[in-house]
């Protein structure tokens, strides 16, 4: 039985859905690992039931006198201190913008090896499976470590509930922070849309979308699916969509349950970002488009006919 910590990410005070897969992984193959969930300066009581439903028996609220939110180095130092305090065998988190920034700092502080963006982890074996070469290969990496550090690709591990009794603990590490890295402002994106990397379903529009206003058609369909809307690089480069919507090697890596690619040819660099999706659907006018060789279900047709019909069928 191992002792595993998970850094929980909150959005507007709520636990992001993507944390549940990480908690599931933290319980280990046998399912009997002791799981500590770490939150920072949060209302831990308010999220206790959600976290314990996925197996967290300790919910540790890390508090600090300094401005935790403004300093990734202070967050990392505090988390590293907590990992020591609770004698963890492993510490997991999400491969999200926050997770990857904090975990790499933790790994550097603790001088431990780390595996980024795992699609599966084996805590007992201290191994993880991750993409190498932009999704073309899977690498199994084994760590020779004191504590196993790993980030997990959002949605890559299916969450499974396993309710336990949980206690809430407060931990105030005394850490020094003389880092000059300071977050001075957070600019909202204008839209409060679901982040692509967290979305359980994604509808993507490629170059075939032809104009930015045509993304409305995809948004209508996405709304019914609880989906986020993505774009190919060709669509981004043509100015139809902002870079924050780009899926692929130079954009975001996503792993939703369902990925619907509309008017996307299926280039390797696009696949690099969505290959580990559970189900991929391609819609393309060209029956020979490469996407059809690499997806699960295909529809040969014009997105301007197929997408509205799909939206209708979902209503």
């Amino acid at each position, binding site marked *: 039985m191992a002792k595993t910590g998970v850094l929980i990410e909150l959005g507007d005070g709520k636990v992001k859905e993507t944390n549940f897969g990480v908690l599931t992984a933290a319980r280990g193959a046998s399912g009997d690992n002791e799981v500590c969930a770490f939150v920072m300066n949060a209302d831990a009581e308010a999220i206790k039931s959600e976290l314990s439903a996925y197996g967290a028996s300790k919910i540790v609220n890390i508090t600090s006198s300094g401005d935790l939110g403004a300093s990734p180095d202070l967050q990392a130092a505090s988390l590293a201190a907590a990992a020591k305090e609770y004698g963890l065998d492993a510490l997991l988190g999400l491969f999200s913008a926050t997770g990857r920034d904090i975990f790499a700092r933790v790994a550097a502080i603790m001088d431990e090896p780390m595996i980024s963006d795992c699609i599966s982890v084996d805590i007992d074996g201290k191994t993880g499976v991750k993409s190498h070469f932009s999704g073309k290969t899977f690498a199994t990496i084994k760590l*020779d470590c004191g504590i196993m550090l790993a980030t997990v690709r959002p949605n890559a591990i299916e969450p499974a509930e396993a309710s336990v009794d949980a206690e809430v603990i407060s931990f105030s590490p005394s850490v020094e922070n003389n880092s000059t890295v300071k977050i001075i402002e957070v600019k909202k994106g*204008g839209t409060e849309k679901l982040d692509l990397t967290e979305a359980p379903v994604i509808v993507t529009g490629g170059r075939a979308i032809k104009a930015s206003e045509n993304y409305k058609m995809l948004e209508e369909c996405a709304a019914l699916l609880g989906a986020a809307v993505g774009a190919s690089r060709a669509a981004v480069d043509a100015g139809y969509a902002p870079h924050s919507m780009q899926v692929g090697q130079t954009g975001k890596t996503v792993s939703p349950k369902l990925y619907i690619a509309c008017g996307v040819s299926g280039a390797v660099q696009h696949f690099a970002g969505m290959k580990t999706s559970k189900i991929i659907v391609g819609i393309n006018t060209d029956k020979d488009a490469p996407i059809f060789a690499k997806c699960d279900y295909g529809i040969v047709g014009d997105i301007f006919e197929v997408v509205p019909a799909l939206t209708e069928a979902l209503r």
Partner: protein
Amino acid sequence: MKICVCIKHVPDTAANIKLAGEQGFEDSECKFVVNPYDEYGLEESVSLVEKNGGEVVVVTVGKEAATATIRSAMAMGAHRAILVKTEGQFLDSALTCKALKAAIEKDGTPDIIFTGKGSVDTEGFQTQYRLAAALGIPVVNEVSKLTVDGSKAVMERETGSGEREVVEMTLPGIIGATKGLNEPRYPKFPDIMKAKKKPIDVIPLSDLGIDEGAGKSVLVKLEATPERSGAKMLEGSVTEQVAQLVKILKEEEKVI
């Protein structure tokens, strides 16, 4: 102003990766390039030096073959390079960091070190953070906008749903570049010719007292990603196809 830019020699993302044995791939069979994210760091370095004066030094840890990649970075405007020479292509990132640190310290600590946000071959997403800790300087990664004002750098990073963080740090520091920072230039023919004469200092890894086999993250297995065998194509009119799809996604795949 002295700027170091850490550049990894990686297979082109369009290259086919032919596996060889349990952990290897045929690296002689694919085209190698400057890691695409490092290229944004390189472009930024060169344009900063064009504005403020100084020099751009490329630092690479890799096989002898990386020389070609270094030359292409030089064609983009880097002045000289240090190649820490290894035998193998897979190197644990903590070892890479040790090598980068030793090479950079030996050369004299720069004002700014650029890296990419991550490498596209091993996708480690950590070397720059380790290097910062080892050198005792700050690091900000995934930077898509930068302003340097004396010894202060103000940066923007995208953090999801189009949200952006504005971050500042004091230099010397490490900046991990990503798309959006700039548009890397295409070298012109005279630049390519000039690059051939620029100096590359080659240092074997062992000369820095680093044992290539001492990595704590070990590649156990490299395998091709399971490919989908081709789509099940839906048939009939648009309405029929869509109805079939919805039924499959709901009842068979249970994803909606």
